[in-house]
């Protein structure tokens, strides 16, 4: 699956002059068959015997067996010799500038994530024009994902863009007890695993006449919720509930929950 995702990223990376190499312990014959079937344009290097993998200290021995046991899978003889899955980013001088090795082989990077490894995060990336949106008093929220499709076990990122109305603020979690803090909750879906939402640090805000300072969000805020499907559910809606309480400098509106959903289509797992 990573090889197919890399192929999706290949054209953009080629344009940006980033080379791609993929290494495994497969024989040339196995790689030739895969490359033809999946139309791979970049080198798939054959480290049969795992000598390079071993020399790099990337031989996945005990951990593979433990991982399989954890998931209730028997390790086959032929699987010994594999590398830890991950990516090294090399600069123009061939020096390793970044390293991304997953803890679990069951969470896999997508084409967009490979592009970010090579090119950096486009933090300026604004929501696509057709990103689903919901508006309430004092707050607008838009959500989108990197792609319109997903495969099981891939990193799906739900990007959340919140815009608080001018001269207003919403309370951050771990803010004052008497106010409802901002919370991002995914509607549960059987086969969907939801990770911890990532939000920027809130700001401290003081009010005239009050000793207490509050943690708040103002203006434009970008968040992200990491998700993972464990099976192909076909067309699915990812529904986000945004609970918040918006205030001006003098008064607070009642807590509100906005609901916004993005649709994705499921694709089957590709084994690679």
């Amino acid at each position: 699956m990573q090889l197919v995702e890399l192929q999706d990223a290949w054209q953009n990376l080629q344009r940006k002059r980033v080379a791609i190499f993929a290494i495994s312990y497969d024989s040339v014959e196995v790689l030739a068959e895969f490359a033809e079937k999946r139309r791979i344009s970049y080198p798939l290097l054959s480290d049969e015997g795992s000598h390079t993998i071993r020399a790099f200290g990337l031989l996945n021995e005990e951990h593979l067996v433990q991982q399989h046991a954890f998931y209730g899978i028997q390790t086959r003889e032929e699987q010994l010799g594999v590398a830890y899955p991950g990516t090294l980013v090399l600069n123009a001088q061939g020096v390793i500038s970044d390293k991304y090795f997953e803890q679990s082989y069951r969470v896999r990077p997508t084409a967009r994530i490979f592009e970010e490894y090579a090119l950096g995060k486009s933090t300026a990336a604004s929501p696509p024009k057709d990103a689903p949106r919901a508006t309430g008093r004092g707050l607008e929220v838009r959500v989108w994902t990197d792609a319109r499709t997903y495969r099981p076990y891939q990193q799906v990122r739900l990007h959340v863009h919140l815009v608080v109305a001018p001269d207003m603020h919403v309370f951050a979690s771990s803010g004052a007890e008497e106010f409802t803090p901002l919370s991002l909750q995914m509607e549960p879906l059987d086969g969907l695993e939801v990770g911890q939402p990532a939000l920027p640090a809130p700001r401290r805000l003081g009010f005239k006449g009050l000793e207490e300072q509050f943690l708040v969000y103002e203006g434009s805020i970008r968040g992200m919720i990491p998700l993972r499907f464990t099976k192909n559910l076909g067309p699915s809606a990812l529904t986000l509930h945004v609970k918040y309480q918006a205030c001006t400098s003098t008064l607070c509106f009642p807590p509100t929950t906005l609901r916004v959903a993005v649709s994705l289509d499921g694709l089957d797992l590709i084994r690679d």
Partner: protein
Amino acid sequence: MSVSPQLPVLDFSEIGPRVGSRLADVRLPDQAGRLVDLHTERGHRRALVVFYRSARW
């Protein structure tokens, strides 16, 4: 009270080639059987070097 087994956490900063070091030379055949020298093939470009389990399983 039973404790569910935990996967041991690996510290990948200590495993594999180190960030900040030049990747050692790699000379391996590609899918066409052609011997590829990674740094030569890379030229002066940046690169992603992706390790994966297998193209077969």
